[in-house]
């Protein structure tokens, strides 16, 4: 066997031309400068600069790539540009919302007593003084925070058992029977109910059962659970469905009854998904405004009884502060409080989402060795 010497070549036959590593940065820099120049001709603004630069960047990079690397790589670059562009477009509103709420909300949130006091006794006189600079902005969201937490908690207490048991029926006992199909259909319909309709339903229901004019936190909780139950059913159903049938059979083969199998094998296996689904359902309803307006009214003082009397909540607090400022002539203190409440609401939703992730991680089946 003779060994043939490897011919010395400058470039591998398996590669084509390649753009240098710094190519995207160069194109980006050129695109930014060119974009600024073009915008300067027609009047500069930041948004237009971003759009024009992005188009120039994509065209430049794809064109350069097509010239050096060939059409396949150029198409790849084009797809990458489109994907990243779509991602940035989707991200913009989110960042913009968070930025706006932070900028406007932080002064309200840092105001002493904002989280610890209610609006009880806060009148236009105080706000006029605050606007003139002769007094502090007084009043806070304590009553609304308490209301939101209580109403949402009660709605969760109502929705989770109903929703989870429905999902268990659908997955474990339904067998595609007419009843199961009907439930699935109506759950789908419920998912699309406008929230104000849910609020009107709860209000009308309590007017008929308890008495006209019944407006309490509990009525609002019922309205929210009408919105929440379909979400809980759907997410729990999906989670129960992906529990492998083999686990149920393994339990049956050990002589375990069906309800025990569900309680001790199926639900523990799916609990992480169920718990995060429930948390996301809570996040979905915690910001509802319309159903709470028609069911719990709006209070300015602290009401710790969810079953009696009008109750404030963060969304209705924001709504009333913006629409009917405490001092009609000087709405600034009111809008400062509204933005502060909005920031608190967003923080609550973010905490719930983080909680969902944490729950999913804590309950997930472990695969350690």
């Amino acid at each position: 066997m003779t060994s043939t010497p490897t011919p010395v070549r400058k470039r591998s036959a398996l590669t084509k031309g390649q753009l240098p590593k710094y190519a995207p940065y160069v194109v980006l820099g050129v695109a930014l400068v060119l974009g600024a120049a073009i915008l300067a001709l027609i009047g500069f603004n930041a948004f237009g600069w971003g759009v024009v630069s992005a188009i120039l960047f994509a065209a430049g990079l794809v064109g350069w790539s097509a010239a050096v690397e060939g059409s396949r790589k150029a198409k790849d670059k084009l797809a990458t540009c489109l994907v990243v562009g779509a991602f940035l477009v989707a991200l913009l509103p989110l960042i913009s919302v968070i930025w706006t709420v932070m900028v406007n909300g932080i002064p309200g949130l840092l105001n002493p007593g904002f989280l610890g006091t209610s609006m009880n006794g806060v009148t236009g006189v105080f706000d006029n003084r605050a606007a003139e600079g002769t007094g502090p902005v007084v009043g806070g969201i304590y009553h609304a925070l308490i209301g939101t937490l209580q109403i949402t908690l009660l709605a969760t207490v109502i929705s989770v058992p109903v929703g989870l048991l429905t999902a268990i029926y659908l997955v474990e006992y339904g067998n595609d029977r007419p009843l199961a199909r009907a439930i699935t259909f109506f759950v789908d319909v419920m998912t699309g109910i406008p929230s104000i309709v849910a609020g009107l339903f709860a209000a009308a229901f309590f007017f008929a059962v308890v008495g006209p004019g019944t407006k309490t936190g509990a009525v609002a909780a019922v309205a929210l659970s009408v919105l929440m139950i379909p979400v809980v059913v759907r997410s729990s159903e999906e989670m129960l469905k992906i529990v492998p049938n083999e686990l149920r059979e393994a339990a049956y083969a050990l002589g375990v009854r069906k309800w025990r199998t569900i309680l001790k094998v199926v639900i523990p296996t799916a609990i992480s998904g169920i718990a995060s689904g429930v948390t996301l359902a809570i996040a979905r309803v915690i910001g509802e405004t319309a159903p709470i307006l028609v069911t719990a009214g709006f209070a300015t003082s602290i009401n710790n009884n969810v079953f009696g009397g009008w109750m404030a909540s963060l969304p209705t607090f924001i709504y009333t502060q913006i629409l009917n400022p405490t001092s009609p002539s000087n709405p600034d203190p009111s809008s400062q409080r509204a933005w502060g409440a909005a920031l608190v609401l967003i923080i609550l939703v973010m905490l719930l989402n983080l909680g969902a992730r944490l729950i999913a991680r804590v309950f997930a089946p472990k695969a350690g060795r």
Partner: protein
Amino acid sequence: MSKRIDVKDLNVYYGNFLAVEDVSINIEAKSVTAFIGPSGCGKSTFLRTLNRMHEVLPGARVEGEVLLDGDNLYGPGVDPVTVRSQIGMVFQRPNPFPTMSIRDNVLAGVKLNNQKISKGEADALVERSLRGANLWNEVKDRLEKPGSGLSGGQQQRLCIARAIAVEPQVILMDEPCSALDPISTLAVEDLINELKDQYTVVIVTHNMQQAARVSDKTAFFNIAGTGKPGKLIEFAETSTIFNNPSQNATEDYVSGRFG
């Protein structure tokens, strides 16, 4: 602690489809019986009727009798849960409970039924079952770790330990080695040989060498064509089935002429 099974004229249906037709078979206590046959011939279906596991599938039903030491499993008022606690089952793919530790997997039959058991008894049961499944030495230092962290062969032996922890009369195995490598298969086969001292073992297998190695008696199932019911063709001593079968179809199958 083992019982015999006598099956008389059993028909198995899925809805209106007759899957297995007219099977009569006598399975001795403390023996290993293997079911062989081509795919789709109804041997797994038939195995699942022996502990009423087929009922889990909607529309499945049987006609005929299955007698466990003379008691009909399908008699009126018989609770399938009682049947399954006497006739355990090991499945094709290892399926330890992912939320439970190795120890809890072994104790699953006890704990899921909420039976009271002291810690000492539980420890003894775990060790006895894992030793019975030839797994004790490999897992004794990590009993609190999840069962899903074991290798496939270890998981299957964990499932066998879980099945024998409830002290059944009969153990059914539905192709227990088809997802395992040869070494793990050997471990499970050795285990089957030991199990027959105490239990009646029925095993479904695609592997004819395995049937020849582990079983005392072998039943050959066949199917006339797609859409036709599976039938029991021949049931005899394993050596007879493989060396001197009375039916031509059996001879064709075991000699590799088809299937």
